[in-house]
């Protein structure tokens, strides 16, 4: 995506909602959850299904998710997109939706996701592509890829397991402020370190949750947004970068494409890391939070571990990060990016309740897909920023 094709502030996210989360009622399908989230997101902004003329859907549980959702909703949109680059697909869909809206191909875009991976069993819904050059070694998909990256970060920069654990502890502290978070009890560094080792150096507490859940976003033009119920979260900047698919082909295990996607988003927004009030990054694993804090410029490369060690990203710290509790403690149905965007919107609107960042005018929503493979960044701002 060439962000020069997009105009800063020309579109906004105007409606957001989760479906049921956690472990949903037996028999609910991914499409049911998309439907729930769609209905709630439309209600959030005061639009109806009849207003939707662009549909963007993805899930790992359907081969043709946009087609399936259009049938389910009973609409034949003017514009559609089924991008699947993993958990950051939704950030890219925001960019693609803005492009379509600017071009006049649609006016009200629905971005939707649904997953029942907890109910259905993760191995049934998230099977990796067969790769004969890697499968014989039985890496855990995707945890072992992130563990390999973590091993490199620890080797090169002296990052410790305790520092990684601090990321999980901070996420849990934020989750305790979020009424819909899956996790309800505090977590300590020792509990993270002592949890079942999954793929060294990552214990199960260094890994995202396995929950059900869906989400939906409504994107429209700034002009239409001004007529709706809630304060618009203007799209100030977007950026995308694809660097590899398999971890074996990652150019540098300690540097992600967030460096490129973030730079593009900052350039379009005319903002830098110091201008961001709330930071939402896809925390598939504790190591990913460190990598994205570094690559998005919130601390120098290699310093992520030391940056988080003293509670800097926990409630009350110097930088509010993953204020919903993140994929580590709030929810993680498999492709988590839509929830990252949702929290960024809520912070910019000032409706995040006990976890609200005071005076939040700007938020960054950074998504990750595959095995650190795809990176997409969206910067949102309130009325004062446009």
């Amino acid at each position, binding site marked *: 995506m060439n962000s020069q094709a997009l105009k800063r502030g020309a579109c906004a996210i105007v409606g957001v909602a989760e479906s049921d989360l956690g472990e949903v009622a037996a028999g609910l399908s991914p499409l049911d959850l998309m439907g729930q989230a769609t209905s709630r997101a439309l209600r959030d902004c005061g639009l109806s299904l009849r207003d939707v003329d662009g549909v963007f859907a993805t899930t790992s549980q359907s081969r043709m998710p946009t087609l399936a959702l259009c049938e389910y909703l009973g609409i034949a949109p003017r514009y559609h997109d089924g991008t699947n680059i993993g958990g950051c697909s939704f950030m890219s869909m925001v960019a693609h939706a803005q492009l379509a809206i600017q071009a006049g191909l649609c006016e009200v875009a629905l971005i939707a996701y649904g997953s029942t991976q907890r109910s259905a069993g993760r191995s049934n819904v998230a099977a990796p592509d067969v790769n004969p*050059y890697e499968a014989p070694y039985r890496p855990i998909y995707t945890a072992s890829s992130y563990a390999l990256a973590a091993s490199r970060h620890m080797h090169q920069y002296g990052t410790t397991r305790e520092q990684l654990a601090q990321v999980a502890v901070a996420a849990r502290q934020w989750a305790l402020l979020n009424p819909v978070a899956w996790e309800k009890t505090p977590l300590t560094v020792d509990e993270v370190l002592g949890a079942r080792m999954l793929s060294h150096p990552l214990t199960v507490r260094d890994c995202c949750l396995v929950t059900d859940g869906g989400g939906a976003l409504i994107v429209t033009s700034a002009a239409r947004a001004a007529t709706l119920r809630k304060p618009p979260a203007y799209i100030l900047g977007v950026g995308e970068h694809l660097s590899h698919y398999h971890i074996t082909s990652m150019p540098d295990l300690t540097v992600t494409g967030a460096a490129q996607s973030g730079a593009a988003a900052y350039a379009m927004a005319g903002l830098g890391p110091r201008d961001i009030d709330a930071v939402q990054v896809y925390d598939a694993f504790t190591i990913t939070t460190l990598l994205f804090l570094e690559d998005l410029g919130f601390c120098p490369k290699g310093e992520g571990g030391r940056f988080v060690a003293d509670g800097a990203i926990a409630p009350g710290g110097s930088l509010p990060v993953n204020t919903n509790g993140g994929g580590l403690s709030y929810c993680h149905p498999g492709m988590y990016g839509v929830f990252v965007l949702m929290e960024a919107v809520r912070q910019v609107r000032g409706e995040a309740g006990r976890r609200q960042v005071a005076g939040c005018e700007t938020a960054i929503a950074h998504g990750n897909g595959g095995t650190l493979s795809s990176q997409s960044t969206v910067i949102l701002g309130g009325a004062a920023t446009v």
Partner: protein
Amino acid sequence: MDSRTSASAAPASPLAIFRDHLSRGELAYQYDPASGRPVFHPRVIGPGTGNDDLQWRVSTGKGTIHAVTVISPRGEAPYNVVLVDMDEGFRLMSRVEGLAPEEVRIGLRVRMQVHQPQDGQPPYPVFRPEAA
């Protein structure tokens, strides 16, 4: 080659050629003259160049551990998964044998040997410490 196969059809898949080398005890990789770089995983055109005339080469089998993880499945012995940087400049996923999994360290020098599964599955490369 039968009449349904065009003259430009690949005579064998990259995977079949890779495994054929393994059956002879060799770790094969590709080299792209257009970029001057090794290519792995094997494929039919060069990444970044589109060159459809990649050369096959045989590695010396020597490399260095670049990254390591140890997987601890429930009710099963832990095992390691590594990324190995071969001396020829390509990287592959593998495992180190002949060493306790937690002793596999980044920087360890290793040498390839072919693992032939007992269950009839295709051979694949594994590594042992170079000194052993």
